[in-house]
């Protein structure tokens, strides 16, 4: 592991040259896997994430079936090569927690009552990690769900906010996450402003919290536009050739 940089923010400029409320470059592509019902590949700064959606399909084991609605399965998994020190493969405490909160972050937009007794399976593979993988995963999964043709009320967008060197910042990179004061992933239904996930690690004041939330809202708006564009681009591509 590298050592802590002396300063994370220099005159309002962050280590990678961004201002406090700027997001990293994001590239989203919908429909990248042929065998999945819906899929999405996203590159968000140093994060590279692949999301696949299968279903609705028969839920197994049977006792998990709900006769009134579909159930959601969400699997967040980090590849062993996704971080500097090899990540021991397989589920661990952290990934089980992230899978749970991510599933709950997407559930409010999914219209599950259309598919009783079935299961919607979401797989999120982190190929390369650089802070904010759970928010990147939720953003990708949301596009993959729409691509799979699953009835939804809206898309969910997610981004992280936090605090480093005493300043509130948007979309943290790894150094800011590791050595900063706080990290707060947020997922929301951008168009309505409803928050579907909010976690925090570290501490910030009430005022800073409000500021951070406004940053997150602004960030989600940019993310939402890119999500929408990726789906429209997929359709346009299918028309052109």
């Amino acid at each position, binding site marked *: 592991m590298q050592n802590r940089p002396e300063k994370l923010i220099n005159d309002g400029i962050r280590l990678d040259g961004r201002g406090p409320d700027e997001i990293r470059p994001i590239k989203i592509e919908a429909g990248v896997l042929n065998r999945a019902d819906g899929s999405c590949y996203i590159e968000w700064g140093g994060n590279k994430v692949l999301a696949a959606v299968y279903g609705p399909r028969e839920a197994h084991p049977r006792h998990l079936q709900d006769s009134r609605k579909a159930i959601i399965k969400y699997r967040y998994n980090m590849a062993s090569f996704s971080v500097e020190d090899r990540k021991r493969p397989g589920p661990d405490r952290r990934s089980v927690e992230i899978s749970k909160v991510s599933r709950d972050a997407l559930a409010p937009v999914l219209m599950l009552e259309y*598919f009783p*007794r079935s299961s919607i399976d979401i797989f999120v593979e982190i190929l390369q990690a650089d802070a904010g993988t759970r928010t990147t995963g939720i953003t990708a999964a949301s596009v993959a769900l729409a691509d799979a043709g699953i009835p939804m009320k809206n898309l969910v967008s997610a981004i992280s906010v936090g605090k480093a060197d005493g300043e509130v910042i948007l979309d943290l990179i790894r150094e800011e996450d590791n050595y900063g004061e706080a990290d707060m992933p947020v997922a929301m239904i951008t168009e309505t402003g409803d928050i579907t996930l909010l976690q925090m690690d570290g501490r910030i004041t009430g005022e800073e919290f409000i500021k951070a939330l406004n940053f997150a809202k602004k960030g989600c708006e940019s993310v939402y536009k890119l999500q929408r564009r990726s789906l429209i681009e997929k359709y346009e591509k299918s*028309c052109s050739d």
Partner: protein
Amino acid sequence: MREEVVIPGCFLGESVTAGEGTFVEENRVYSMVYGLVKRDKKEVEVIPLSGKYLPKAGDLVIGKVIESTFSMWIMDINSPYEGLLRLSNYPKRIEKEDMQKEMRVGEMVITRIKEVEFPMRINLAMDDRKCAVIREGVVIEITHTKIPRVIGKGGSMINLIKKKIGCNIFIGQNGRIWLSGSDEKIELAAETILKIEREAHANRLADRIDRFIRERKKGKGKNAK
């Protein structure tokens, strides 16, 4: 003509009738799926670009027998749910011991969705003229959302294929298509239909398909000489 693509949650209008693929919240109509908007005088609908087949009563589908129990056949109808064909819904009176003779596991059957009971129990029947066990030809599978493109406006596309190729085609609403005729005709028809699936949203699809069939026929003719 460019069609209007929408993503889930897209606002479609106020005081219009909400058709399929949409939902209403506080009198405002929004899209529920990723798809293409279809507007009528009063109604707005969103045709999904992808998704699983949801059985609807009255649909003719092609099922595959996956199990034969003492009183019914269980069929895979290319959907999250299995279809059940009870002996009482079979047109012929047969003994339970003879069920295996009528329809064997693995065979394809044209069948009608009789009713959809809560919670998604699909009852099938063989009470349509077209219902039959498929014993010849080939069954291919495409995304069910592309079926309307294969049929075309008022059946224009499917009639074009039938006329130009001279192959018998039956289209199941669940995305399975039965082709019968000579091997050559089946092959060309299957290729054509898969091309329609791939290029479902291309401009002037009918012209492209017409040209494709003509070129392929010419190509084949040359090879034969």
